[in-house]
């Protein structure tokens, strides 16, 4: 086979085609994320899920398209970019709108029954269950079979299988 090209041209053509190929790949590249910073955005959405949209019929800030919801999400994003922690952002929202904006009710005097209630109910249920079971053992005493009943039982078990339904 005669040499088609001199030594350095083949590698150049190879590299050139690689370059062109890569350019084509760039066209088929992954679509860019909407948010400038996807990691931050995840954090914004996670916190927004815990905050209530005040003008909606029970939706979180992350699910709502209402204007106030968008404004509040922007506020959350800005505060996160400024380095505030989740707790600080929550406090800010509560300072303006009250506890109503939190879907995760804070633990305070007024919500004591709410948070402790289920646990108390469970303990109460368990205690009543245990007592009930003990009472049952005492209240319903078993009577031993009379000799008549014993004989009948024997007949039924050994003899007529068909009647023993």
């Amino acid at each position, binding site marked *: 086979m005669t040499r088609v090209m001199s030594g350095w041209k083949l590698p150049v053509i190879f590299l050139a085609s690689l370059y062109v190929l890569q350019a084509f790949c760039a066209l088929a590249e992954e679509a860019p994320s909407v948010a400038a910073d996807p990691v931050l955005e995840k954090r914004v959405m996670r916190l927004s899920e815990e905050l209530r949209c*005040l*003008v909606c019929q029970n939706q979180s800030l992350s699910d709502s398209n209402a*204007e*106030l919801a968008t*404004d*509040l999400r922007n*506020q959350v994003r800005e505060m996160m970019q400024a380095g505030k922690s989740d707790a600080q952002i929550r406090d800010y929202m*509560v*300072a*303006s*709108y*009250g*506890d*109503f*904006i939190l879907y995760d009710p804070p633990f305070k005097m007024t919500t004591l029954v709410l948070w402790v209630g289920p646990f108390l109910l469970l303990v109460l249920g368990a205690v009543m269950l245990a007592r009930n079971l003990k009472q049952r053992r005492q209240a319903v005493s078993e009577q031993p079979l009379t000799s008549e009943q014993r004989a009948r039982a024997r007949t039924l078990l050994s003899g007529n299988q068909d009647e023993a339904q």
Partner: protein
Amino acid sequence: MARHLIPLLVFVVIVGFLWAGLSLNPREVPSPLIDKPAPEFSLPKLREQGAVLRTDDLRGQVWLLNVFASWCTPCLEEHPLLVDLAKRNVVPVYGLNYKDQRAVALKWLRRHGDPYTGIMVDVEGRTGIEYGVYGVPETFVIDKRGVIRFKHIGPLTPQVLEEKIVPLVKRLQA
């Protein structure tokens, strides 16, 4: 017998609450800012381009903050009441022009009357968020020391004005 009464008693308690609930509005968000200092702001004035209005400037007097916008229909409902109130010279009313456009807002005021002693512009709604605004219109009563004493959500009515706001203002001014 006593044990078996418990479900009935629980039911009675629940019904009591449900009955009370029928006269409540589950969507109204009361303000946590009552008796707290009004959030500070330094906002451009609507009518004087380039000038700025600060909360400090308003200290020493009792004043009303009325959050409004030209695109807000209930604001139009309450507007005549505010114009009337301004004429009576009871208390200065300051407006917070919320998420609006300057030219459109000025036109709206020219058309419907301007009761405001001063108007602040809140284009993005940030100050609104600080004040816990979630809908327009909303009206606050702020005292001489800059503490919020009352918030009314929704358009003002003559009852609210005469029974709650004006008496409160008079008390605070004394």
